[in-house]
């Protein structure tokens, strides 16, 4: 039995589906704008990530949580979260390898011009990936409910 049936969360509505179909691309674009443009305007990885995560939640409300769960590959969510942490850590630790301090962006200047701006942009994207995937993950986990943990026989005890 799917979680949608069990909780009666999903109501199929043409109005909601049509609205979400129109609005979702704009919201995702806005999320990316907030992430990329955080250097010059309010916003950044944390805010943009949450907005990007809310796109998936909107789709789930319109088309059902189970449909969204099938549509979204779990590997994408997991690799966004761990990839974000690894990106941030790699950029930070890379400068130490180059003989500087943690996150001393200008040491990358020898490989690429405007290294500071690009470095900050990458860090923001990494943060956005972490926040978006964890928000989506928490959403799906909560939607699945606590039935699995309670129903499953306790092997270890």
């Amino acid at each position, binding site marked *: 039995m799917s979680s949608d049936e069990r909780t009666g969360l999903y109501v199929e509505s043409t109005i909601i589906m049509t609205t979400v179909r129109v609005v979702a691309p704009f919201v995702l674009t806005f999320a990316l704008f907030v992430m990329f443009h*955080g250097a010059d305007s309010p916003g*950044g990885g944390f805010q943009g990530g949450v907005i990007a995560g809310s796109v998936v939640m909107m789709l789930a409300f319109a088309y059902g949580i189970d449909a969204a769960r099938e549509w979204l590959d779990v590997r994408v969510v997991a690799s966004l979260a761990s990839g974000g942490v690894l990106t941030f850590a790699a950029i930070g630790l890379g400068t130490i390898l180059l003989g500087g301090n943690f996150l001393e962006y200008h040491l990358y200047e020898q490989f690429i011009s405007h290294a500071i701006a690009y470095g900050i942009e990458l860090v923001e994207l990494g943060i956005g990936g972490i926040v978006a995937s964890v928000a989506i993950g928490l959403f799906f986990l909560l939607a699945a409910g606590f039935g699995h943990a309670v129903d499953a026989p306790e092997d270890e005890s």
Partner: protein
Amino acid sequence: MTLSLIEAVLLVFVLGCAIGAAVLRDVLASLMAFAAYSLGISIIWVMLEAPDVGLTEAAVGAGIMTILFILALANTVRPQENGLFESISVRTVVLVGAFVVVMIATVPSLPAIGAEGAANPVVSGEVTQHYIDNAYADTEVHNAVTAVLAAYRGFDTLGEAVVVFSAGVAALTVLRQEVFA
């Protein structure tokens, strides 16, 4: 300090929503009041010229938190209650009242909004001035908040990002799931 009409209306709205979230008996109604409170606060942040905080409050407080709360509510039993408001015990009122008094007692020591010079250590402080003067030259970003977040205090931010990541892992562990779906 004079309040503009919009500020006064917003403050009353936010206070009303906060009290509503505390005393409403129906959990869903209380949740809606909480979301409205977050939205009101986020507009206040923008009016106080803290758009980064406002954006976060609107996206996380009013958006994601509300959705997660509603999901949790949908997965639990919502008892049919009669009566609009929770019955409030005297002890709770005394405790919350004492807390509010302590909080309000700290307000006079804050600098006035828009105060300049020595009257406002937040603005005139050495660290703040250093960020404002050097942020663009050091980091090539116009938003000083981003400069502090991703460059000056980058190590702290890595910690924050790892905290978010750990929250996801902890949720997986507690709910005994292996994947985020």
